[in-house]
C-alpha cells in the first residue's frame, strides 16, 4: 500500500520535472543567446534586408505595366503589396473598369446619404433655401428621444449634449461629425448583419470570414486609412468609408454569435410551426437574437465615433480635425473643449444605444392620440413650435458667434497652473525615467536576437496548442522578421511592454480594491464604462498637457487607455468566483487575505489573464495613435511616414506587423485562459 502511494508521488514529481525540463532548456538557451549575442554574426540580432531583397515580385506578371519605383531600399515585402495595389488600380477587368473604379463608384453610395444628412442637420438645402434643423429643435428632439428610451435623466443628458455644441460654438463641427456617424453606423450595421447572416448560412463562409474579422480587429486604425486613400481618395467621404470598414467586424461577429446562440428548442418550435427557411431567419432567428444584435449596434456606434476622430487624418471633417489641429498647435484649452464635445457625444450615443438595447417591448395603450403615442405628439409639438420660433428669431437656427461662449481662456489658465504646480513633482519622472529605465529596456529589446523572440512565441505556442499553433504563431512573427522593419518593430514592442507592465501595476490593485465591496464595484464599473466610451484620441490631451510630446507621453497615454480593461476583468473575475467557494474558505478559517490569495485570485486568474490580453490589444492600438506624439523610431513613425509618402503597400505591411503581434499574443493568452478555465471547471468562452 505504502509502496503504491510512494510510487505515485514519485510519478507526480517526475512528471513535474519532465514538464519543467523543456522550458528550462529553452530558457537557458535564450539566456545564452542573449548574453553571447556579440559572438554571433549581425544577422543574428537583426534580420538583414538581404533576405527579402531577392524575392521575385509578382508585378512582372501584370501586363508589362511597371509599378512606380520605390526609392528606399529593402522594402520588398512592401513592394509586394504595392504591386497588388498597383494591379487593382490600373488593371482593367474586361478592358472596362479597374478595381479602383468599382471602389470609387461604391463610395458614391456613401456620399449621397452623407450629403443629405449633413444638409439636414446643419448646412441646409441651399437649392431650396431651407436651412438645417434649427438647434433648438435638435435639442428638443434629442431630449424626447432620451425620455422615450429610458427616462428624464437620459433626456437631460442628450438634450444637454446637443445644447453644449450650440452654446460652445461647435455647432457646425459637431453636426458634421454626428451626420457622419448617423450615416456610417447604419451602413456598418447593415453590412455586418448581412455578413453574419451569410456566415450562419454557409459554414465555409464563416470559416473564411472569422479569421478575416480577427485580422481586421487587430489592425491599427491607420492600417485602414492608407489603402483607403488609394482606393477612395482623400476627403470627407474617405473618412466615412474608413469608419464603415472599421466598424463592421464587431457587428458581423456578434451577428454570428447571436444567430448561433438561439436555443435549439426555439428553432425546433419555429420548424414545427411550419416556417420556411426564410421565415425561420426573419421571424425566428433574428428576433430571438435581438439582444446580442443590439449589443453589436452599440459597439458599432462606439467604433464609429472612435474612428471618426482618426479619420480626420484622411480629411474627414468635423470635431476630429478641429481637435487634431488644436493639439498640433498646442491650443490646449480649445482642444479640451473639442475633446469634451467628442466625449459628450460618445457618452450620449452610448447611453442612448444601450437604452435601446435594454428597452423591453411595451404595451400599447389604446385611446386618444396623446395616450397612444405621447412621444410622437411631443416631438411634433417641438418641431412646430421650434419652426415658428426659428422663423421669428434667426438666432434659433444657428447660434451666431457673438452668442456662443468659450471657456478656453479659463481652461488655459487652469491647465497652466496645474502644469506649473505639477511640473516640479513630475520632473522626477521626466528626468530619471528615460536614462535609468526606458533607454536600457529599449536597448535590450533592440538587441534581443530575433531568433529568441520568435523562439519564445513558437515554444509557448507548442506547449499550449501543439505544433499547429506553434507554426501559426511562427508564421505571424516570421512575417515580421522578413518585413525589413525588425528594429522599429522591436521599439514598438518595447513601448507596449513597458506600458503593459505599468498598466498591470496600477490596474490590478485597483481591480482588487474595487472587487472588495459592492459600493466600490459600482463606482469603478461606472468609471470604466464612461472611460471606455472615450475615443482613444482623447487620452492624448491630458498627457500632452503634463508631459509635452515625447516617449513618456506616448507610454502614459497607453497606460491610461489600456489599463481600463485590466481593471474591469480583475474585478469581474474576482466577483464571479462562486459565493459558495468563498463561504467554504471562510468557514475553513481563512483570513480575508487568505481568501483573496488562496481562493479568489487563483480562481479569477484566467479571467484576469483575459484582461491582460485586452490590455495588450488596446496598447497596440494606442501605441500607433500616440506614436504621433512619441517621436520614437518605431512602427507608428514609419506608418505616418508611409501615409505622408502615399506608400500604401508599406502602410499595409506595417499595419500587418502590428496586427500579427496582436494576433499571436491574443491566440496564446486566450488558449491558455480557456484551457485553465476548463481545468478549473469554469465556463469557457466560445
Amino acid at each position, binding site marked *: 500500500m505504502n509502496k503504491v502511494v510512494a510510487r505515485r508521488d514519485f510519478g507526480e514529481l517526475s512528471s513535474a520535472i519532465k514538464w519543467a525540463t523543456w522550458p528550462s532548456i529553452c530558457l537557458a538557451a535564450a539566456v545564452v543567446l542573449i548574453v553571447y549575442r556579440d559572438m554571433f554574426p549581425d544577422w543574428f540580432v537583426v534580420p538583414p534586408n538581404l533576405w527579402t531583397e531577392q524575392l521575385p515580385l509578382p508585378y512582372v506578371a501584370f501586363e508589362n505595366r511597371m509599378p512606380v519605383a520605390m526609392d528606399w531600399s529593402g522594402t520588398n515585402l512592401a513592394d509586394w503589396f504595392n504591386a497588388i495595389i498597383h494591379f487593382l488600380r490600373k488593371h482593367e477587368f474586361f478592358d472596362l473598369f479597374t478595381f479602383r473604379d468599382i471602389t470609387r463608384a461604391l463610395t458614391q453610395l456613401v456620399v449621397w446619404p452623407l450629403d443629405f444628412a449633413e444638409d439636414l442637420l446643419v448646412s441646409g438645402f441651399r437649392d431650396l433655401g431651407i436651412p438645417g434643423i434649427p438647434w433648438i429643435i435638435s435639442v428638443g428632439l434629442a431630449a424626447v428621444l432620451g425620455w422615450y428610451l429610458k427616462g428624464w435623466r437620459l433626456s437631460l443628458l442628450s438634450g444637454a449634449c446637443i445644447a453644449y455644441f450650440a452654446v460652445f460654438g461647435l455647432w457646425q463641427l459637431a453636426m458634421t461629425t454626428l451626420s457622419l456617424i448617423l450615416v456610417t453606423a447604419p451602413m456598418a450595421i447593415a453590412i455586418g448583419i448581412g455578413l453574419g447572416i451569410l456566415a450562419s448560412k454557409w459554414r465555409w463562409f464563416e470559416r473564411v470570414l472569422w479569421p478575416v474579422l480577427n485580422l481586421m480587429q487587430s489592425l491599427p486604425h491607420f492600417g485602414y486609412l492608407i489603402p483607403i486613400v488609394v482606393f477612395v481618395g482623400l476627403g470627407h467621404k474617405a473618412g466615412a468609408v474608413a469608419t464603415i470598414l472599421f466598424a463592421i467586424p464587431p457587428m458581423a461577429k456578434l451577428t454570428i454569435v447571436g444567430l448561433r446562440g438561439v*436555443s435549439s*428548442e*426555439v428553432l*425546433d*418550435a419555429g*420548424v*414545427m*410551426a*411550419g*416556417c*420556411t427557411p426564410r*421565415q425561420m431567419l426573419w*421571424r*425566428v432567428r433574428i*428576433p*430571438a437574437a*435581438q439582444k446580442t444584435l443590439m449589443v453589436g449596434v452599440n459597439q458599432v456606434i462606439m467604433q464609429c465615433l472612435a474612428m471618426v476622430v482618426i479619420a480626420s487624418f484622411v480629411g474627414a471633417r468635423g470635431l476630429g480635425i478641429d481637435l487634431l489641429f488644436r493639439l498640433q498647435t498646442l491650443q490646449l484649452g480649445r482642444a479640451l473643449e473639442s475633446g469634451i464635445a467628442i466625449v459628450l457625444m460618445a457618452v450620449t450615443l452610448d447611453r442612448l444605444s444601450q437604452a435601446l438595447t435594454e428597452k*423591453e*417591448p411595451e*404595451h400599447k395603450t389604446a385611446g386618444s392620440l396623446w395616450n397612444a403615442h405621447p412621444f410622437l405628439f411631443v416631438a411634433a409639438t417641438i418641431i412646430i413650435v421650434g419652426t415658428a420660433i426659428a422663423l421669428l428669431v434667426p438666432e434659433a437656427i444657428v447660434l451666431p458667434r457673438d452668442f456662443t461662449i468659450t471657456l478656453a481662456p479659463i481652461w488655459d489658465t487652469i491647465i497652466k497652473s496645474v502644469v506649473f504646480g505639477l511640473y516640479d513633482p513630475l520632473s522626477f519622472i521626466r528626468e530619471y525615467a528615460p536614462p535609468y529605465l526606458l533607454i536600457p529596456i529599449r536597448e535590450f529589446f533592440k538587441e534581443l536576437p530575433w531568433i529568441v523572440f520568435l523562439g519564445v512565441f513558437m515554444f509557448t505556442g507548442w506547449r499550449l496548442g501543439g505544433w499547429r499553433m506553434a507554426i501559426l504563431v511562427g508564421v505571424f512573427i516570421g512575417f515580421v522578421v522578413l518585413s525589413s522593419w525588425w528594429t522599429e518593430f522591436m521599439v514598438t514592442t518595447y513601448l507596449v511592454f513597458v506600458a503593459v507592465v505599468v498598466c498591470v501595476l496600477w490596474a490590478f490593485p485597483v481591480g482588487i480594491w474595487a472587487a472588495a465591496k459592492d459600493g466600490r464595484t459600482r463606482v469603478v464599473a461606472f468609471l470604466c464604462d464612461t472611460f471606455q466610451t472615450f475615443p482613444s484620441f482623447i487620452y492624448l490631451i491630458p498627457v500632452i498637457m503634463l508631459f509635452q510630446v515625447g516617449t513618456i507621453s506616448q507610454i502614459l497615454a497607453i497606460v491610461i487607455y489600456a489599463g481600463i480593461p485590466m481593471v474591469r476583468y480583475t474585478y469581474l473575475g474576482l466577483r464571479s468566483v462562486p459565493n459558495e467557494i468563498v463561504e467554504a474558505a471562510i468557514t475553513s478559517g481563512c483570513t480575508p487575505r487568505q481568501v483573496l490569495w488562496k481562493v479568489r485570485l487563483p480562481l479569477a486568474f484566467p479571467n484576469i489573464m483575459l484582461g491582460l490580453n485586452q490590455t495588450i490589444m488596446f496598447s497596440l492600438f494606442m501605441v500607433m495613435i500616440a506614436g504621433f506624439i512619441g517621436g520614437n523610431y518605431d512602427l507608428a513613425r514609419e506608418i505616418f511616414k508611409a501615409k505622408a509618402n502615399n506608400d500604401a503597400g508599406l502602410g499595409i505591411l506595417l499595419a500587418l506587423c502590428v496586427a500579427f503581434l496582436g494576433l499571436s499574443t491574443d491566440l496564446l493568452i486566450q488558449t491558455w485562459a480557456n484551457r485553465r478555465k476548463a481545468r478549473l471547471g469554469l465556463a469557457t468562452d466560445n
Partner: protein
Amino acid sequence: MTTEAKLSCEQLWKLYGADPEKFFASHGDRPTQADIASGGYICAVRDVSFDVYPGEIVVVMGLSGSGKSTLVRCLSRLIEPTGGEISFEGQNLLEASRKEMIDIRRHKMGMVFQHFALLPHRTVIDNVAFPLEVQGINRAKRHERAREIIELVGLSGRERYYPRELSGGQQQRVGIARSLAVEPDIWFLDEPFSALDPLIRREMQDEFLRLQSLLKKTIVFITHDFDEAIRLADRIAIMYEGAIVQFGPVEELVLNPATDYVRDFTKEIPKEKFLTVGRVMGPVVADCGTLSIGESDLIGDVAAKVIDYEGVACVRDEHGQAVGSLTRGHVAKILFPEES
C-alpha cells in the same frame, strides 16, 4: 385494435458519428451494440417500432440520455433518422419533401417543448398565432382563432403580456396553446412539465387531461417522471439506451415487467394507483352487501369505502350487473403488499 394506427414507426434508428448512413447500410441496417461501439458511433435511437392509435396517449418514459427526446424529434423529423420508416396517416413521412413537410407541420402537427421555446419579442397572442401567421392567414382571422385557444388554456385577459411577464406554468400554457393553434392531428409533447415546480406540474397535468377529454388528440408524450406517465398514459413505452424495452399499459408493465430495468422502475409504484377493481375482485357471491362499486374504478379510489364497510362489497359493471365481489382482504393485499 382494429382501427388503423395514426402514427407508426418501424425499426427506427438514429446514429451519430461520421457518415452514419454508410455505416448503417454496411451493417445490413442492423448494427449490433459491439459494431456501434467499435465504430465510434453513438446510438441515440435503436430499432424502435411502435404504433399510436387515434385518440390515444402514448407516453415515452426514460431517464436522461435514454434517447426519448431524439425519438420524438425523429417522429416530427426535426432530426433525420438514420434508418427505418415512419408512417403518419398512411403516408411515408420520411419520403415527404421539404415542402410537404412544411405543409404537414403547418396543418397536422403540434409540439410542446420542455423550456417552452416562446418567442420573447412577441406577446402571448402573437406567440399563439405564430403558426397561423407563417401560413399567411390574415391578422384578424388568426387572432380570433388564437383568442379561442387562449381561452381554452385559461389565459384569457393575458393576450397582451410578453412571455417574460408570465410564470413558468403560464408560459407553458402559451406553449400548449401555440401547438394547438393549427388543430393538429398529432400532438407531440417533449417533457412539457419537467421544468415546472411539483405543485404546478400536478395542476398542469390535470389541465392537460381536461384538454384531452375535450380534444381527443393523438398524443406522444415524453417524460422522465414515472408518476406522470402513470397519471396520463394509455400506454407507456419505456426507453433504455435508445431502445424501447417494454411497451404496454401501466398494469402490464408493473405486473409483468419484461426486464430487470423495468422491474426496478415499477417496483415502487403503488398498485392502487393503476389497478382497477375488475383486476383483483373475487367471484360473485350470494351475500353481496349494500356497497356497490364500479368494475373500472381504481382500487385507490374505493379503498377507504371498502375498508370502512363491514361486509363484502359488490362489484358491478357499467350496466349495474353484478360481476364480482371485493373484500377488505383484497384491498389490503394491494395496499400493503409487503405484509401479505
